[in-house]
Each structure stands twice: as C-alpha cells, then as structure tokens.
C-alpha cells in the first residue's frame, strides 16, 4: 500500500501535469478564443488574410486550445424551446391528396357517381360518392395512393388508413405513417433551423431535438430571443399561385380549393387564390437581396430547371393575368404577367426594408420549415450579466479554495498542506477535463465546483481521521498511515457513489443549467477521488521516504 511502483508515480504526476497543461488555455480565454475562431475561418474559407494570421498567432499552435464552453447564463445569448406542430403536416398531406383523388375518381364518374369532399376534422379526408355500389372501386383508387411505410418500426404497414361509412370514404394517415412523418418533420425542421442559424454565422449554436416534438435552440452572443425568433420562427413557405379574384371582404367567396388571403402591403385588401400552387419555394435554387427598378429593397430569386419550366409554361398561358406571390399565408405582391417568363429567375418586391429583404433572402435560401413552430420557453441573458456572473463565480471559487486550504492546514499541519495541494490540483483537473470534453460551464456549475472544493477534502478527512485513530491505538507511523488508507477506502467509495447517483439523476432528468451542474459535480467526484487517494498518498509516501519519520503528530 505504501509502496507505489515507479510507473504509477509517473502516471499520477503525469495526469496532474497534463491537467495543468490542458487547463492553461482558460487563463487566456479571449486570446485562445480569437485564435480558435481564426483557425476555423482559415480552415473553412482557405483564405489566409494577414489579420487572420495575426489572430492565429495570438496563441501557439502546439498548445492545447480546448476551452471550457461557457453556458448561455455566463456568455449571454438566447435560448428557445420550440414545439413543432406535427398535426399540421397530416392536414397538408390530406389536403394535397384531395386534388389527385378527385382527378382519378372523376375519370370513373359512371361507376362512382358525383364526388365531393365534405367537411371532416383536420388531418382527415372524407369523400362522398354518388353511387354507393361503386364504393369498392373508390377504395381501390384511394388505396393506389397508399404506399408501404419505410420506417424501422412501421415497416410493412401501409401509409393510409381507409374506412368506409355507407357512401363515404374516410381517409387519414395510418399510425405507423404518422410516426414516420413526425420523425421526418422534426428532422427537417432541425435541419432548416440549423441552416438558418448558420447563415447568420454565430459561434457554436446548440440545436438539438428534445423529446418527440421539441427542438432546443441556444445561440450564444445573439442580442435577444426576439431576434432569434424572427430568424427561425417564420415558416417561410413561398408559393406562386393563380389569382381568382380580388376584393375587400375577408370572408369573400371561395370555392373548395380556393382561399382568401390578405395583402401584405395593403391593409383591407384581399385576394382569392387557388390553393394548389403553380411553383413553390422548394424549387428555388438561390435568393439574394437586391433593389427593384425604383431603388426599393427587393429579393432576386432563381428557379431550378423544373421550377423554371413550370413557371415558364404558366406565365406563357396566362399573359395579362395577375399571379400571387404568397409567403406564409400573405400575398406579398400580385404582379400582372406581361410576357412569358422563361429565364427561371424573378424578383419579389413589396413593402419591406433592406433588413427584411436580406432576412427573407436568408429564409428562402435555407428552405421552408415543414410546419409551424410555437415557442414554449424563451430566455435572453445579456452579455454584461454573464460577465458579472463569471467574475463573481471565479472570485468566490478562489476564496473558497483558499479558505478551505487554510482550514485544512490549521487542522492537520503538514498533512493538511498535502490535502490543500490536492484540492487546488482538483480544481485544475476539473477545468481541464471540462475543456477537453468541451463540457458547458454554467453558473450553477461554478457553484458545483465550489461545492466540490468543500467536499473534495472529505476523502482526505476520512483518511486522516482514521490515521489519527490508528496512531492513538498505538500503531507505528507507517503502519498507521497504511491502515488508515485501507480502512477508509470502503467509506470513501460508498460516500462518493451516493453523490454520483444524485448527479446521474440530475444529468438524465435535468435540463440546461441543471445538466451543467450535474456534469461539473460528476467530474468533480472523479477528480477528487483521484487527488485524495492517489495524489495525497504519493505526497505522503515521498514525505515518509524523505524523513523516515519515527513519530507523527496529526
């Protein structure tokens, strides 16, 4: 027990030195951060401007450059928890199925009779046919639109659930398809949010799925949650539709398959348009802010080949008619087609300022969200408050460490010095482990480190108290120390496992700051057991080898 192999000694010292080495960048936080950003930019763009090279030179390349990731409460930024409206997708799937079914069924009018869609709950389609005898044929037609579900859990099931009630057919997505659809919708939303946030180019945003229908978005450095919401909150579904009529009545006449939408730039003015679009935003390849012929802000866009062909055909057939450019259920403009537009590019102009134009361009480039989002949680932390918290947190961590160290030295003398050294190295190790793992430090996390400083000495206290007892029992110094370490072991392990259980629960059930706290607490447990058991023991062994003590006052 009181002999440690040479290679083990080297390992223990090595871990401590490595820990200090990897914790070092945190002392030069802003400089290392600038360096890291410069390296990243050079890697991505390949352009080595003198400024970037200067910035990169601010921190030597051979040094570790991992930093403790500062949480939003320390750095400032915005946090959003968004809920994806999954049901809306069911509805739009059914609504887009109807025109195709109508076409196919109308072709067999003799067997089916008159066909009409009657009102039914959102996400379902209820079709009534004139001839009840033709119901089986009608079901066959609907079934031809059903395809096997291609998800792992739902494999082998068909995508549509079809029921008949007399002369009516009730169609909706099957449960398996709903599950698969939910998954796709959330993934797609996640991807599009990521693209939109990346377009703005902030540092290390966190965008991740949470639960079945939630997305967590954390963007450090952004001014406010409002700003972030404006960026990702809009669906940005762009469509080009044909205009049926215009008017001032929001409840104006609209047949099935038509809808009345407000004009964005003229309050009180409404367009009745066909719901099925001529071309959609998905067929855009590019969009950029521009100015129109009057020098007003506008957005230039370009279609892909299919979009260009559809748009060309439509405009050729409808010269002299207006068509509506619809963005998220608002008509942003309705120009009259003067001639066929075959080049595949166009311009959206309307009432917008330059900032809105560039935002619209970003949104169009990144693609439309598959469905709407609601924000369940919004948090903004200003950068000053974050800095204040860092200052207060580090000050109290330093004071706590010093105070505990002094107390240990007063209580245990030389052995207290060993314990105090261990505590300081423990804090260094926590920081380096967090830097290497890229773990996030939050304000409760700092409190966690401070708490760890208090409890880290616990293992040492258990050992020292035990050694004291062994000494009182009349054992020789080396023997007492040896037994002290051995006997204290099971208590130390048990004590730390219980705290670890609590930390693990916090990690799995907690969110945000609580999770950060759990991570710090767990890292602190591991490092404190290491420093208390191995490092302190090594220091004591050195002391024994050096002084060969005959007696020990502890």
């Amino acid at each position, binding site marked *: 027990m009181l002999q440690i192999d040479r290679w083990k000694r080297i390992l223990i010292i090595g871990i401590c030195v490595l820990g200090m080495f990897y914790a070092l960048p945190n002392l030069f936080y802003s400089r290392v951060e600038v360096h890291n950003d410069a390296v990243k930019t050079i890697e991505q763009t390949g352009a080595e401007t003198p400024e970037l090279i200067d910035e990169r030179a601010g921190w030597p390349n051979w040094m570790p450059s991992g930093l403790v990731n500062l949480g939003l409460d320390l750095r400032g930024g915005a946090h959003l928890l968004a809920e994806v409206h999954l049901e809306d997708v069911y509805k739009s799937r059914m609504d887009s199925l109807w025109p195709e079914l109508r076409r196919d069924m109308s072709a067999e009018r003799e067997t089916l009779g008159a066909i009409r869609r009657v009102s039914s709950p959102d996400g379902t389609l209820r079709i009534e046919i004139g001839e009840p005898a033709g119901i089986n044929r009608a079901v066959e037609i609907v079934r031809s639109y059903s395809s096997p579900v291609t998800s792992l859990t739902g494999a082998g099931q068909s995508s549509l659930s079809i029921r008949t009630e007399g002369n009516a057919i009730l169609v909706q997505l099957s449960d398996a398809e709903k599950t698969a659809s939910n998954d796709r919708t959330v993934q797609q939303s996640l991807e599009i949010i990521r693209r939109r946030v990346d377009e703005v180019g902030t540092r290390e945003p966190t965008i991740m799925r949470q639960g079945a229908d939630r997305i967590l978005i954390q963007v450090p450095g952004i001014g*406010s949650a*409002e700003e972030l919401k404006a960026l990702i909150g809009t669906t940005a579904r762009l469509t080009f539709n044909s205009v049926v009529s215009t008017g001032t009545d929001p409840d104006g006449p609209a047949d099935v398959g038509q809808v009345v939408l407000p004009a964005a730039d003229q309050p009180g003015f409404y367009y009745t348009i066909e719901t099925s679009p001529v071309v959609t935003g998905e067929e855009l390849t590019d969009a950029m802010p521009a100015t129109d012929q009057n020098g007003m802000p506008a957005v230039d866009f370009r279609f892909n080949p299919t979009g260009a062909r559809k748009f060309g055909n439509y405009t050729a057939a409808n010269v002299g008619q207006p068509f509506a450019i619809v963005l998220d259920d608002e008509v942003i403009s309705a120009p009259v087609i003067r001639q066929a537009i075959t080049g595949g590019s166009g311009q959206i102009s309307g009432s917008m300022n330059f900032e809105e134009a560039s935002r619209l361009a970003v949104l169009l480039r990144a693609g439309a969200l598959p469905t709407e989002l609601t924000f369940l949680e919004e*948090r*903004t932390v200003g950068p000053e408050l974050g800095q204040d918290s860092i200052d207060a947190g580090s000050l109290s961590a330093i004071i706590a460490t010093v105070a505990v160290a002094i107390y240990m030295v007063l209580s245990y003398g030389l052995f207290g010095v060993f314990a105090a050294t261990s505590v300081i190295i423990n804090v260094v190790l926590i920081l380096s482990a967090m830097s290497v793992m890229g773990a996030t430090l939050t304000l409760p996390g700092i409190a966690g480190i401070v708490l760890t400083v208090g409890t880290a000495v616990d293992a040492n206290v258990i050992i020292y*108290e035990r050694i004291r007892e062994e000494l009182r029992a009349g054992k020789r110094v080396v023997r007492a120390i040896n037994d002290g370490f051995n006997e204290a072991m099971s208590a130390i392990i048990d004590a730390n496992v219980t705290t670890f259980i609590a930390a*693990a*629960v916090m990690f799995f059930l907690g969110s945000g700051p609580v999770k950060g706290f759990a991570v710090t607490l767990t890292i602190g447990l591991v490092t404190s057991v290491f420093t208390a058991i191995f490092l302190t023991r090594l220091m004591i062994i050195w002391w024994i080898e050096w002084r060969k003590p005959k007696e020990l006052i502890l």
Partner: protein
Amino acid sequence: MAFRLKLVPEVTHFNFFRWQWATFGVSAAAMIGSVLLVLVMGLNFGIDFKGGTTIRTESPTAFEVSEYRAALTQLDLGDVAITEVFDPSFGTTRHVAMIRIGTTDETGSVSPEQLNQVEAALHEVDPEVRFASVESVGPKVSEELIRTAIYAVGAATLGIMAYIWLRFEWQFAVGCVIALIHDVLLTIGLFSLFQLRFDLTTIAALLTTVGYSCNDTVVVFDRLRENLIKYKSKSLFDLMNLTANETLSRTIMTGVTTAIALTAMLIFGGDVVRDFVIAMLWGVVVGCYSTLYVAKNIVLWMGVKRDWSKTQKNVDSPFSGAEERP
C-alpha cells in the same frame, strides 16, 4: 508544528441517544412544520414551475419600485410583481430589479409586443435602464418541469436506497432515506418560510443535498458495520454511540469545509445564485444533523442483524479489492 485546530476533542463519549426523544420530537415537528408552511404560505415558484416572464433590469441610477409599478400598471398586463434586488457587491451604481409578469394567455409567455411595451415604458421612467435578462416559460413546459422535478427527486431517492440496500442491510437503507426525506422537507420548508425563489436550480440543490446527506450517513454506517463485526457482543445501542463518537470529528470537519466553501459562494457569488447556495448550505447543516440524530435512530429502532460473519468477506470486495494490499 504541533498546533492543531480541533473543533472536536480527540476522544468523545457523547451519548447521542440521551436526547433522542427530544431530537426526534424536534425533527418530527420541523417536518410537519415544513409541510404546514408549504400548505399555508406556499412556495415562491419561479417561472420554471409557474410559467410567465421575468425581466431583470439594471440601472446606474436609483429607482423607486413604485415608479416602475406605475409605469407598468397602465399596460394592463395582469399579475405583475416588482422586487428590488439588493446585493453588497452592487455598490451605489448598480440598481437591480426583478419584474415578474404572470401568464396572460394560453401560450403562457408575454407576447413580443407586450415585452416591447414594457421595455419602452421602463425606458420612459429611467432612460438608462438596461435589460440584463428576459426569460419566458409557457405553462405547458412548466407543468412538465414540475413533473420531471418530482421524478428526479424520487429517482435519486430510490437509487440511493437501492445502493445502500445492496451494500448494507435494508434497515440502513430505510434509515438513510428517512433522513433524506427529513432534509428535503426541511429545505423546502426554509424556502417557504423565507419565500425564496423555488425553481429548477433549487431542485438541483435539493438533489445535491440528497447526495450529501447520504454521503454523510453512509460514512457512519460504514463504520457501524465495521464495529458490528468487531464487537459481536456489545449492544447495538452502545455500538451506535461508539460509532457516532468515532466518526464525529470527520462529520464536523467535512461539514465545516463544505460550509466554508459555500459561505464564500454565498457572500461573493452574486445574487443570481444566492438562493441556490442558501439551499445547499442549509442542506449541509440539516444533513449533518440528520446523520447524527435521524438516520442512526431509525436503524436502532428497527434493529439490525448481528451475525455479519458471512458478509465479512464481501465488505472487502468488490470495491475495496480495487486497492492493492502490501
């Protein structure tokens, strides 16, 4: 070199059970009192659990809460609470207020337009005011957060109970868990009494208390088990006292170092984490107390098996076996 700061004499012979009925009474009364406090006074739930919006304002000039209130009442926001935050570290050039606006509609949070109105109204009263943080939580999420918080405390309790049951005997697990419930209840009671803000970080503090309290108790149990093996014929009562006296200096020592560290955080850590630190500090104090006066007593009353000869081998493994012997 010989000077040692000792809070506890080397050898003590306290009879920890002399006051056991009194301490038991105090504990029981405190637990019931805490529950009553929560029922009568309620808890000052943060927006994590209640939904709504909080705005933290900072201004270099002093302000009157009544001015702010007057500015906000004309906006018709419903339930608005404004509190001034005092902190020794602020000095005379930092004046902080927390404004809390209750949920107004289904979506829970205050709408962006209302938020802009609030900010504009406050700017009018105090042109230098800054909005250090703005947080909104909808009622849907806050309900879930409450549920997860309860699960979390429950899961931690069960997990620790299971571990202690595996490592010791079921009586120890029950003793530890009752001590733990005692600590959690008393901490919640403190939050109710002083109307400290009870939010997600408080739950984290509660869980830490849970871990710490058990940590403390387990060290005592560990020694008790050792003594049970060592002294086969002594009464459980005497063994318990012996154990508590043997581990007393460690219990106090660790309690003090933890308290020192947390007090530093309490004084210098700023007002944002203050309630969190108070919860942990209090947890450490009651944790210490419950180790000495709750957990042990429960085990004593339930009794414990005395023949440990078979398990003696297991004591060394599997964990302590990881350490090599000379």
